[in-house]
């Protein structure tokens, strides 16, 4: 078996590195320095991931749509993100005259700031969280809630019908899906008994017969994760819910009037938001940095965290390639009449789960309740939806 300390060292490599660097500085400055260092680390790592994600998305979509995707720049198109970045930096930054300059400028900045604030509490690895906060989840959601404001600022400041309309749609969508997002995570909090993400991961980091205690392997956990996933995609305006910047009718949604670097910032904000929400999803339901199998315990924890994040990014991309866009009212109905009730039900099931005690009964009951509710809500709730086969009308 590999030596324990090496694994640990590998596991804690970043922390040790940071401590090593900070030790050079005089005592007074060390605290500040460590903080700055951490922040710098995050700001460096996640944009990189962003670049990879963008590349992955364009290559993946291409492959899905039976085409190659970018392969000109660098081997297999690997340097495409760098090219994009350079392109956005060099592009002219046009600001419409009628636009409100201050708000126009502030919108993307505010978005990026708020999104990055979210990473402060995510546990990327064993004791690799920037701020070990007791109400970490609450902080995360507080920051998450502010993004809508920046979207609105963008939409309104550009004094453009389409952008305003797009902003309104985006905000409405994000608000209506924020509630299920919170509610599904509340289930997890209820079971672990604490808002701090470290505790949640710790709770999932136990193994029985080699299988991890991830929440996803519990009925309410699985349902919760599914609903969380749906809410997350809606929250980041991705794939089936990407109505706001639906190219077909709203050009580019709320950031139509943006160009150049501000456009890049919005793009960055969006993808980083996606990464952070998937990170959260991983920590809440997929055990964060805990290994899938007991035996794989030696692998450093952060690898598992980033692996899960990239996995969910692939799922996002996969969703984008396959599912059609939902109409606004369908979207809203889906949120308020299907997802929210189910999450509330999930809360109840989690409560039952917690008080039924060990044994197979609770598995059966919980899963039964959830299945029945899902089928009933689906059939009854969606009956008027008649998403039938598409009928074409040819011009006579």
């Amino acid at each position, binding site marked *: 078996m590999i030596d324990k300390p090496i694994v640990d060292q590998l596991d804690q490599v970043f922390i040790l590195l940071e401590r090593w660097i900070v030790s050079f500085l005089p005592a007074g400055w060390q605290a500040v320095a460590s903080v700055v260092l951490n922040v710098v680390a995050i700001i460096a790592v996640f944009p990189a991931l962003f670049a990879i994600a963008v590349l992955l998305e364009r290559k993946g979509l291409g492959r899905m749509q039976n085409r190659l995707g970018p392969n000109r720049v660098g081997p297999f198109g690997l340097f495409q993100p760098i090219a994009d970045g350079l392109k956005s930096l060099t592009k002219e930054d046009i600001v419409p005259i009628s636009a409100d300059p201050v708000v126009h400028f502030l919108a993307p900045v505010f978005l990026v700031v708020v999104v990055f604030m979210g990473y402060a509490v995510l546990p990327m690895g064993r004791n690799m969280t920037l701020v070990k906060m007791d109400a970490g989840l609450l902080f995360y959601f*507080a920051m998450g809630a502010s993004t809508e404001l920046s979207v*609105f600022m963008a939409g309104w400041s550009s004094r453009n019908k389409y952008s305003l309309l797009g902003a309104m749609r985006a905000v409405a969508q994000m608000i209506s899906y924020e509630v299920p997002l919170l509610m599904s995570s509340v289930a997890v909090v209820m079971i672990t008994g604490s808002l701090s993400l470290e505790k949640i991961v710790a709770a999932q980091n136990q193994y029985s017969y080699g299988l991890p205690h991830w929440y996803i392997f519990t009925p309410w956990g699985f349902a919760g994760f599914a609903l969380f996933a749906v809410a997350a995609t809606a929250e980041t305006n991705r794939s089936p819910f990407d109505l706001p910047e639906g190219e077909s009718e709203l050009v580019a949604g709320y950031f139509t009037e943006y160009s150049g670097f501000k456009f890049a910032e919005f793009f960055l904000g969006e993808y980083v938001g996606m990464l952070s929400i998937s990170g959260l999803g991983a920590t809440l339901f997929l055990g964060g940095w805990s290994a899938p199998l007991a035996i794989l315990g030696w692998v450093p924890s952060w690898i598992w965290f980033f692996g899960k994040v990239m996995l969910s990014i692939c799922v996002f991309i996969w969703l984008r390639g396959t599912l059609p866009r939902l109409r606004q009212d369908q979207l809203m109905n889906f949120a308020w009449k299907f997802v929210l009730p189910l999450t509330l039900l999930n809360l109840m099931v989690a409560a039952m789960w917690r008080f039924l005690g060990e044994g197979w009964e609770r598995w059966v009951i919980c899963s039964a309740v959830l299945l029945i509710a899902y089928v009933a809500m689906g059939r009854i709730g969606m009956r008027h939806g008649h998403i039938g086969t598409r009928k074409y009308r040819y011009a006579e």
Partner: protein
Amino acid sequence: MSIVFYIVAALAVGGALAAVLLKNTVHCALALTIAFAGIALLFLQLDAQFAGFAQILVYIGAVAILVVFAILLTRGSETPKDGVYGRKWPLGLVIAAAVFSDLAWAVLQSARVLPHEAISAPTVTVLQIGNALIGRYVLPLEIIALLLTAALIGAVIVAMHEKEAGK
């Protein structure tokens, strides 16, 4: 007193002033969010973590958006032609000043009584708050639940489009 307090206080007061004085209503709303953020920071500085985050989540997340929505719906964004301030605005100002002087006077007078040194920061965990909510403050909690649902339904009905109601 620490520099941070002054900065944050300045942020909050500045935001509030901007929210009150600005011409454009949307700018006021945004200034308001800044003020909310300032106040949240003040909460955090007072080691009331949960309150601070709740403040951010509730106010910035919901109320600000709500205000903005209201502004857009009522076409408040166009600057009104006949001045932003109400008819008898100086009177309002005077009264506000009077109130402030009262409050300030009260605070200054009671200087002797107020504790000077900052007591050790109480470690407040969410668990404690949870227990308090369910234990000692279960009644307020239920009432708040009721209040929120009523407000939810009430707001919807009040703002419902006249056509459906008028039918």
